[in-house]
């Protein structure tokens, strides 16, 4: 069943948040097929070949991350990063509210690929209502035999659990998230070792962002080549751009990687409020560099390899638009106050830079 979206499919099919409708649209066929007729490594290979890269900010190739899992130590875990706390980012929330089963199927496929029998979804505490909705949907999946013990008559079992954070930006960093999930202060660990060798409870763990995982069911169902048909050669696929700030139509826009800032801001976002001139862009939320909105910057494709050319990074692709009426001193002050409040206090440069 085709629509115009791969991720925000609830905009085409509003009923997709119900399991019956999701299955009618082909949902959970990929997971069932994986469990019954694909080797775990084959799932990883498809994801690797698709070119999917982490959508949480770092952009690390997802299949490569999965292939790093240490098969000498067990059990394995999947942790879905649903902490979404970067100012300017609000895409994972829309996925989990609108198209939750595709996300959950992505979690299940990641778990099967690394042979984890337990997966945790770590949600920021403010997503309290989403966690409760997900709990209900996980129960439905268990009742339908799509999650639980000995799935589809195989030896593979999987449980998915939600876990609520409680208001700490730093827990979006994967190792701080793992500490928090272990019931400790959410402070980052020194890396290496990285989670695929030393993760939750010291066991091999894959941590992936919600949007990343939501791509996976369609990749497994339709193949790597199909997915590579979207985006650019080095940045395959689609991305959800969270557009905010001084634009007429803020919101989430699912577009191929490589779309320009100009198209996002002026075509999709309806241009600047009151017809004012654009002054600057923060392409990746509050932790992003602030770039001057020159013609060159506006014509830059938003993908992993191009945004660094104008001095920033694609990150989580949360684009904050700043117009000529905004004082940059005020903006910087505001941003520093955010980081002062959110510094976990572990690393000296951050703690001291934001003190006083």
């Amino acid at each position, binding site marked *: 069943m085709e629509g115009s979206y791969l991720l925000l499919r609830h905009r085409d099919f509003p009923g997709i948040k119900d399991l019956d409708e999701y299955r009618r649209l082909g949902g959970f066929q990929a997971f069932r097929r994986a469990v019954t007729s694909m080797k775990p490594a084959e799932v990883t290979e498809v994801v690797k070949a698709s070119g999917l890269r982490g959508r949480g900010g770092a952009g690390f190739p997802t299949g490569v991350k999965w292939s790093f899992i240490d098969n000498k130590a067990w059990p394995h875990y999947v942790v879905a990063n649903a902490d*979404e*706390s*970067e*100012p*300017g*980012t*609000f895409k*994972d*929330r829309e996925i989990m509210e609108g198209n939750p089963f595709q996300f959950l199927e992505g979690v299940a496929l990641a778990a099967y690929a690394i042979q984890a029998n337990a997966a945790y979804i770590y949600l*920021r*505490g*403010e*997503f*309290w*209502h989403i966690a*409760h909705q997900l709990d209900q949907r996980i129960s439905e999946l268990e009742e339908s035999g799509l999650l639980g013990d000995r799935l589809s008559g195989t030896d593979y079992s999987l449980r998915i*659990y939600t*876990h*609520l*954070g*409680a*208001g*700490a*930006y730093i827990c979006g960093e994967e190792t701080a998230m793992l500490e*928090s*999930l*272990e*019931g*400790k*202060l*959410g402070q980052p660990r020194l890396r290496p070792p990285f989670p695929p060798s030393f993760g939750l*409870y010291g066991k091999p763990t894959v941590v992936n962002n919600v949007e990343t995982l939501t791509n996976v069911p369609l990749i497994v169902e339709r193949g790597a080549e199909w997915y590579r048909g979207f985006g650019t050669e080095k940045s395959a696929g689609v991305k959800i751009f*969270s*557009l*905010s*700030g*001084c634009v007429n139509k*803020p*919101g*989430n826009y699912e577009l191929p990687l490589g779309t320009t800032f100009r198209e996002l801001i002026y075509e999709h976002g309806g241009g600047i409020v009151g017809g004012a001139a654009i002054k600057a862009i*923060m392409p990746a939320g*509050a932790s992003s560099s602030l770039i001057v909105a020159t013609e060159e910057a506006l014509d830059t494709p938003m993908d992993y390899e191009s945004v660094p050319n104008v001095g920033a990074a694609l990150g989580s692709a*949360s684009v*904050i638009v*700043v117009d000529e009426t*905004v004082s940059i001193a005020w*903006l910087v002050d*505001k*941003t520093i106050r*955010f980081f002062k*409040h*959110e510094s*976990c206090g572990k690393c000296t440069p951050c703690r001291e830079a934001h003190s006083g």
Partner: protein
Amino acid sequence: MNILAEKYPQEIETILAKYPPEQKRSAVMPLLYLAQRENGYISRQAMAEIAEILDISTTEVGSIIGFYTLYYDEPGGKYRLQVCTDLPCALRGAEQFLEQLCENLGIQVGETTPDGIVTVEHVMCLAGCDKAPMFQVQSGDGLTYYENQTVKSAVELVERLRRREGGKDGR
């Protein structure tokens, strides 16, 4: 006597079942939410009870409360109305919204209305940047988002919350 354990045996069992038996410390955050359900904050007594359930020290439980912003160790209003004033929201007028809301309620940011119903606070990003001004209302029952707000709609909400509490306690 462990009041928390006696009052919520089912809930505690469900929470502990999420984590490996030898990793029950993981349950500290959900248990803190459970303890906060009743009065909107976590008492010394409840901290000690959680520590006992998880075989960790009360200090360790206390440090978790101190680290995370959604836990409280002292009482506030029955409802905490928390307005995001971070950059994207501020670009859409969230700071003026907060100021005018407080003016209307006759309190300063961080204060509680004299009837004890609402505490108004400013908080960090809530992932609702495209629908500012926006805020969340936190109470013992959980958390609700209110988006695309005006001062008028927010004041009306406060009135509704007052009526709800009056109806419950006033007769």
